[in-house]
């Protein structure tokens, strides 16, 4: 072990500088602590300000995120804390989105808890810490960052789910979610251990190098092994090479599969989705909204960062050792099962839970497509010695951009839909059965409209953002020459039609059925209407301004599986200029709900 002489002095300044790069995340984490302190120590009258303090901090983080979002210095990606985390346009977009989603949850969670009589002052603090974890996943550039981020987020969410002490389903949902989640974490950890064994590193860069090396060795090994089998007297060196190479791959492939399984569990893909409807239903509805938006975004970010950007060497995405075939199969199952189960649900919360599963299926298709393209790019780089500027890499970047776009659009609409459900539950019994939504448009036209817009966006109707999200995603997947993937796109379209049925059923109930005699009790306060208005507005606005939005996502995804550095910055350079010339106002900037409403 050789260690550079201690540079504690430069470390102090470097640490502060790195914290500056991570300002949004640092602010959110700090606010988690601050809110805990104000809850415990502030004067009695001060406690009513919890929500405002939280929103102020989130607004601060959002502004900090905007400065990073608009700063071209980060285009090539900046590694902070010695490569532990990375700040790049991708993470900048995720920061903004996650902070916005957290603010949306904070706006509703307090009202909901008060009305349902389990108000507690720690809620905002936990939401901030969970968002901090999710942001850490978005920035992750090391397996430890990924693991710690997922755990920080999950532990806070377990608590949020179980905090509703006056309703049994809450604690039960928490236990179920916790046991399943902890099991998945343990599997994730074993996978990480095997990956570390195979590559000798936990940083993504090191792992990528190790993966490439393991398989280049493997290639030579096949020849050597054949020579050995044919009875040639092998040199000790050759046999050593065989052993080393085989062992590396024997650790790598199970490691990749274990990590994949755990992450698919976290995003609730189908064989591992059993916990989702129960946990979503049992959790307090604003927390459900948080799980369906923030936690999902973090899970997809983890898949993109680790699988699309790191495990996309040619060998790892193609048969017989590729993970993409398995994920394509999972995507097929996920959208089918999610949609079919959603059709059967009369409970709105469960319906939305299953529909969120179906959306994960579509997203996974995009993940597979992106990884396939990058795998091809990797192969052509290796054989042609190219500089990575192949068509495949462009296509892969576009696929990543459309996945990013889709998850953002989905998360926004999903937040709006779940918040509407939370809003329509001013009484002990939440209006969870579809018939209770009958005629809502007559009593509350504004909220019904907001819910309708969100549902239509989830469904993918043309003027809404969801349509373009699906369009770009499916187009990116269809670019693959693999006929199976093309078939899956057709299958996904059929699924979207099934999805339209259950979304529209709810819309029809709201608009065309006679309202029940007793008026529904709704949450007091302007929080929920504000969130629904903003999410519905965004669902329309992102659809109308889709081209600039996609261009911006493209900028974030450009050279996504490139290591950060000057060559990546060069690659991104022209794009930023083109993008800024095209549209001076960043469209996603409308995300922030105004604090203090």
């Amino acid at each position: 072990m050789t260690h550079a002489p201690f540079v504690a002095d430069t470390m102090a300044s470097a640490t502060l500088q790195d914290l500056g790069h991570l300002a949004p995340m640092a602010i959110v984490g700090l606010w988690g602590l601050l809110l805990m302190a104000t809850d415990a120590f502030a004067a009695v009258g001060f406690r009513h300000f919890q929500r405002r303090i939280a929103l102020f901090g989130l607004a601060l983080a959002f502004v900090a995120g905007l400065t990073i979002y608009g700063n071209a210095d980060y285009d090539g990606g900046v590694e902070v804390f010695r490569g532990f985390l990375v700040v790049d346009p991708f993470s900048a977009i995720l920061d903004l989105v996650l902070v916005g989603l957290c603010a949306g949850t904070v706006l509703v969670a307090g009202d909901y808890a008060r009305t349902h009589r389990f108000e507690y002052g720690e809620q905002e603090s936990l939401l901030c810490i969970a968002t901090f974890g999710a942001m850490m996943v978005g920035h992750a550039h090391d397996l430890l960052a990924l693991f710690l981020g997922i755990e920080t987020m999950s532990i806070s969410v377990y608590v949020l789910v179980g905090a509703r002490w006056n309703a049994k389903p809450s604690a039960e949902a928490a236990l179920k979610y916790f046991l399943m989640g902890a099991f998945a974490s343990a599997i994730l950890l074993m996978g990480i251990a095997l990956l570390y064994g195979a590559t000798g590193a936990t940083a993504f860069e090191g792992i990528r190098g190790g993966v490439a090396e393991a398989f280049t060795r493997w290639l030579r090994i096949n020849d050597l092994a054949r020579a050995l089998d044919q009875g040639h007297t092998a040199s000790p060196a050759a046999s050593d090479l065989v052993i080393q190479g085989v062992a590396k791959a024997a650790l790598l492939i199970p490691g990749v599969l274990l990590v994949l399984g755990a992450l698919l569990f976290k995003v609730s893909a189908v064989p591992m989705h059993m916990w989702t409807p129960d946990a979503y239903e049992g959790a307090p509805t604003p927390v459900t909204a948080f799980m369906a938006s923030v936690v999902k975004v973090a899970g997809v970010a983890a898949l993109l960062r680790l699988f699309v950007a790191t495990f996309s060497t040619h060998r790892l995405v193609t048969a017989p050792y590729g993970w993409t075939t398995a994920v394509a199969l999972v995507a097929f199952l996920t959208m089918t099962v999610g949609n079919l189960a959603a059709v059967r649900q009369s409970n709105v919360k469960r319906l939305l839970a299953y529909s969120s599963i179906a959306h994960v299926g579509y997203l996974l298709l995009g993940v597979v497509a992106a990884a396939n393209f990058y795998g091809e790019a990797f192969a052509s780089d290796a054989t042609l010695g190219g500089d990575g500027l192949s068509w495949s890499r462009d296509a892969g970047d576009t696929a990543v951009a459309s996945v990013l776009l889709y998850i953002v659009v989905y998360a926004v609409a999903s937040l709006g839909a779940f918040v509407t459900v939370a809003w329509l539950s001013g009484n002990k019994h939440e209006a969870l059965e579809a018939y209770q939504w009958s005629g809502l448009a007559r009593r509350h036209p504004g909220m019904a409209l907001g819910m309708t817009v969100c549902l239509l966006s989830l469904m993918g109707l043309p003027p809404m953002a969801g349509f373009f999200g699906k369009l770009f995603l499916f187009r990116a997947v269809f670019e693959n020459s693999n006929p199976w993937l093309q078939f899956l796109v057709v299958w996904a379209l059929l699924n979207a039609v099934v999805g339209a049925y259950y979304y529209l059923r709810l819309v029809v109930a709201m608009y065309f059925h006679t309202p029940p005699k007793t008026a529904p009790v709704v949450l007091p306060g302007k929080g929920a209407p504000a969130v629904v208005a903003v999410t519905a507005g965004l669902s329309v606005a992102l659809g109308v301004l889709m081209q600039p939005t996609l261009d911006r996502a493209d900028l974030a995804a450009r050279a996504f599986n490139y290591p950060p550095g000057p060559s990546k910055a060069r690659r991104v350079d022209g794009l930023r200029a083109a993008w800024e010339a095209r549209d001076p106002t960043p469209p996603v900037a409308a995300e922030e709900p105004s604090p203090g409403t």
Partner: protein
Amino acid sequence: MVPITHFLYLAILLFLIGVGGVLLRRNALFVLMSIELMLNAANVALVAFSRLHGNHDGQVFAFFVIAVAAAEAAVGLAIIVAIFRSRDDVDIDDLGLLRD
């Protein structure tokens, strides 16, 4: 010297025993203990690979895992206590309120 491979076998055996405990036991406390066992198994693998590669990354990872596992156990046990307050038994099959 003990071959690293044998550490790996130990880790995988402990891991599988933990998986078996999670899948086959119905008592939430046993499930939680089995999960702790699985985390420990992964730690054995991390430590062994850390020795294999001669760098500290694996050990540091295992160190953080111990902290995370403790936090996870604390929250999990809190949830079990909360459930116990509402009912007398901690059997995950009895969680029937959330069935279809």
